[in-house]
């Protein structure tokens, strides 16, 4: 039995998918979501096998949802925008359905999903990759962090600094650390280059928060932030920082 979640902000679009899916044996709809927040919550609570995901939705769009849940769950994108189609494959979506679509096309996508689920080496979508693949004009304006079924929306400009911790990054925002499953390099690529600078192998700093840089030892410096936090600055990091300032 394939347990699926359907995510679309349009009632009729959900109704159509439901109608199609009910005609297919061994598929069970375990959840229907009308926006991205519900989708993230549903994944955390229902642990489905597969998700049908609309791209254009209020609050969180499909790419942002994938960014938050991507590592765990195979996704089939459902959209009227064919320019998202190729992007869907970039983020390791199993397939995409272009609205409107036929039942046969849906069955084809499901077959693909079953095949992928049967393989143990299914390449999971790396978090962060999804956000990077989104057709975008400028740097990210916000960073999303999932905390269980809860989603924190952090305005990018308000981030103080980011610290790499194994497979995670810790994002410091309003005095709290938010953990996100992503590499520091991925996050750095999404953020505004004129504002965030890699001062150290494991530290990304919002230059607006910098108070001063002090020489700590020979060839070793320390950045002191407005709130007194001290962060290490490598030699390469210092030259990047001086370049930006």
């Amino acid at each position: 039995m394939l347990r699926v979640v359907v995510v679309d902000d349009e009632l009729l679009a959900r109704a159509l998918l439901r109608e199609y899916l009910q005609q297919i044996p061994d598929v069970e709809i375990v959840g229907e979501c009308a926006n991205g927040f519900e989708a993230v919550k549903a994944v955390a609570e229902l642990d489905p096998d597969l998700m049908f995901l609309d791209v254009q939705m209020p609050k969180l769009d499909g790419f942002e949802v994938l960014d938050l849940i991507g590592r765990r769950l195979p996704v089939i994108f459902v959209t009227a925008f064919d320019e998202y189609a190729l992007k869907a494959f970039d983020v390791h979506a199993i397939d995409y359905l272009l609205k409107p679509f036929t039942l046969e096309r849906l069955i084809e996508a499901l077959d693909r999903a079953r095949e992928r689920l049967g393989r143990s080496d299914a390449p999971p979508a790396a978090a962060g990759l999804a956000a990077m693949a989104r057709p975008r004009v400028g740097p990210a304006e916000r960073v999303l962090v999932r905390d269980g079924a809860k989603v924190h929306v952090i305005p990018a400009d308000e981030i103080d600094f980011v610290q790499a911790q194994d497979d995670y990054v810790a994002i410091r925002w309003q005095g709290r650390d938010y953990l996100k499953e992503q590499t520091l390099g991925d996050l750095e690529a999404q953020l505004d280059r004129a504002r965030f600078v890699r001062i150290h192998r494991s530290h990304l700093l919002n230059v607006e928060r910098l108070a001063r840089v002090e020489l700590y030892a020979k060839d070793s410096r320390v950045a002191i932030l407005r709130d007194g936090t001290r962060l290490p600055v490598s030699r390469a990091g210092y030259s990047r920082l001086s370049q930006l300032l």
Partner: protein
Amino acid sequence: MHPILARRERWSFYVLAWGLGACGLALTLVMTRRADWPVAVAVASPMAGLWGGLGLSAQYVCQAVPVRSSSAWRISGALLAASLLSAASAVGMAGLVASALEQALAQTSWAEFGQRVASTTLELSSSLLMLGCVLFLFACLLSYLVIEVDQSQENERRAWALKVHAAEAELRALRAQVDPHFLFNSLNSVGALISVDPSAARRMCVMLADFLRSSLRVRASRITLEREVGLAQQYLSIEKVRFGDRLRFSIEIDAGARHALVPPLILQPLIENAVTHGIASTLDGGLIRIACSTRDDKVCVTIENPCDADRAKGRGVGLGLNNVRARLSAEFGRLGSVVAEDEGTAYRVTLAVPCAADDVELRRPAVPPEPEATPST
């Protein structure tokens, strides 16, 4: 660049012509027994070369007194003066060349030949002067011809470029006016309705057809605001099927604004923005309010919609707005404007164009009578 020197086939033709001219002159000298062959050639070749070189200046004379915009007196005066000057310089220079040749050959066994060339050139100077005048005038005639040919080719090229440009603009405008994704989404809704509510599916098909028909039918450069708002209403009614209770809309139009003239589908990108970036960005949706009024000599259309305060901004909103702005500036220059105000959870666009009522459409009511614009539920 000189138009004769600018093209290979032109200057090769020009050089060939003067080569033949030199042969003709030499032949004439021999036939009229003024000189024998070697002397005739020695006199004629530099002469033809000088005429050819100076003849190129005819182009500038012709450019200075364009045939279309100068009086006949001015043209003939300028041409006569220029041809006399040019012919005199040609003969003068030919004399210098001949005497230089004479001097150069003076100490050699060719001294007698040099003398004959110089004396023949001197003897013939008055006829060469007259001939030079005539040839220069002929060169002027040729230059006028070249200018005209170039001009007409340029005009033709420009006319084509203009046509291509206009066609591209029209195509862009058509594409921009109705977002194709609207169609895909609507068709998806129809597909869903077929089993849920067949008669609603049928209604939706008719609404779609009506909207497409009326938006394709507007060929005029201006339609009344009443019709324009009618198109917006048709569009919103279709989107309402998709968004259900999330989308509500109201349309108010002052009596004075009804017959104001606007470019067709100018509101469409703004209404689409209100739906896709407004209603679609919020969880619960809300009211899209369209209000049309006249203020001073302007007709104003305000479109208000709710939106999500922390939506990711700037994704595509500017596209529709810029499109409208560009169209307004093309149609009205500085007199048309579109202003957007972002108040976090609400977004307002105000479009203002000069008020011009259409008495033709007043006398003959615009094609199908639009349904009375009323707040929808």
